[in-house]
């Protein structure tokens, strides 16, 4: 039971930390709107951040899935560019992996 209790505790600490960080950024942005740096370098940094984070998240995962993972990722990118449907693009990528697993 001790492990369960500490797991629950850790879960609550993580949720609280993530929630406070997110809420702090939401409200902080509004309250600090006058004081945020307006330099082009800061803007360029913040502008590039969402893309670079998602890419960093995804690239090691694609490589870990091997050649079929790369193929599935390419199929996902093409579908996403052509249709702009996130859900459809995801399913196409998963279908490639399903196909590989049924085949081999």
């Amino acid at each position: 039971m001790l492990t369960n209790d500490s797991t629950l505790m850790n879960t609550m600490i993580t949720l609280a930390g993530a929630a406070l960080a997110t809420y702090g950024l939401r409200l902080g942005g509004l309250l600090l709107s006058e004081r945020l740096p307006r330099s082009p370098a800061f803007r360029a940094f913040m502008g590039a951040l969402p893309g670079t984070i998602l890419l960093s998240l995804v690239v090691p995962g694609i490589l870990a899935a091997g050649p079929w993972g790369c193929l599935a990722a390419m199929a996902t990118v093409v579908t996403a560019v052509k249709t702009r449907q996130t859900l459809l693009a995801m399913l196409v990528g998963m279908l490639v992996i399903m196909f590989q697993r049924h085949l081999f």
Partner: protein
Amino acid sequence: MRHSEIQRGFRANLPIAVSVAAYGSVLGVLAAQDHISWFVLLLMDLSIFAGSAQFVMVDMWSTPLPIGEMVTGVAVINLRYLLIGASLEPLFINKSMGHKAFVMHLVADENWAVTMAAHRQGRASSDFLFGGGCCLLLAWCLGTMTGHQLGAFIRHPEVYALDFAFVAVFTALTTGMWRGKMDLAPWVAAALIAVAAEALLPGKWYIVAGGLGGALVPALQCLIGDRGSIPSVKKEEPHVNE
């Protein structure tokens, strides 16, 4: 708060709420596979209410929980809310601190985008924004809870490539982030740093390292450009003066 404005915001976000619910159902399926209880997932929906950050949390979920990596990861992914929050300032002129603190929790990418579009036509308010947030929160919770129910029935997730769903959904989301040639240098840097950091650093720190490292590239280009080393930036300056 004006109810008519809240209702208008709620209705304006209904179309996008459908895709938010669909997206949420994927998160729910994946959370169920990670043995995250529906209660914890619902608590996450209500307290964090940020799609990509919650996907990253569910992806990082393991025993024992990597608390530091997860909170840092969520904070870095949500850094954009600083700018989103700052851009909403015109809607909150003469509003009380309590009103600001209450409404800002329900700001997500989608209702922000819908509100900014309405604002350009002079038809937005903080109540409109809040109504949109309520609509999205409802859709998000319904979607994740439905997905969680479905996920519990799937016995062999690898047959349906569910373990690849994270990679696939993030690949699709990343594609949408591409802003053109200007992203080439930061994206190459981010990918290289992430792959190197994954090999060298423990846990999931490679996400933070690659994200920050990649985003520093255009910032440094700006700084060097200010000193005159990058001609393309310098060339634009005379136009401003003319």
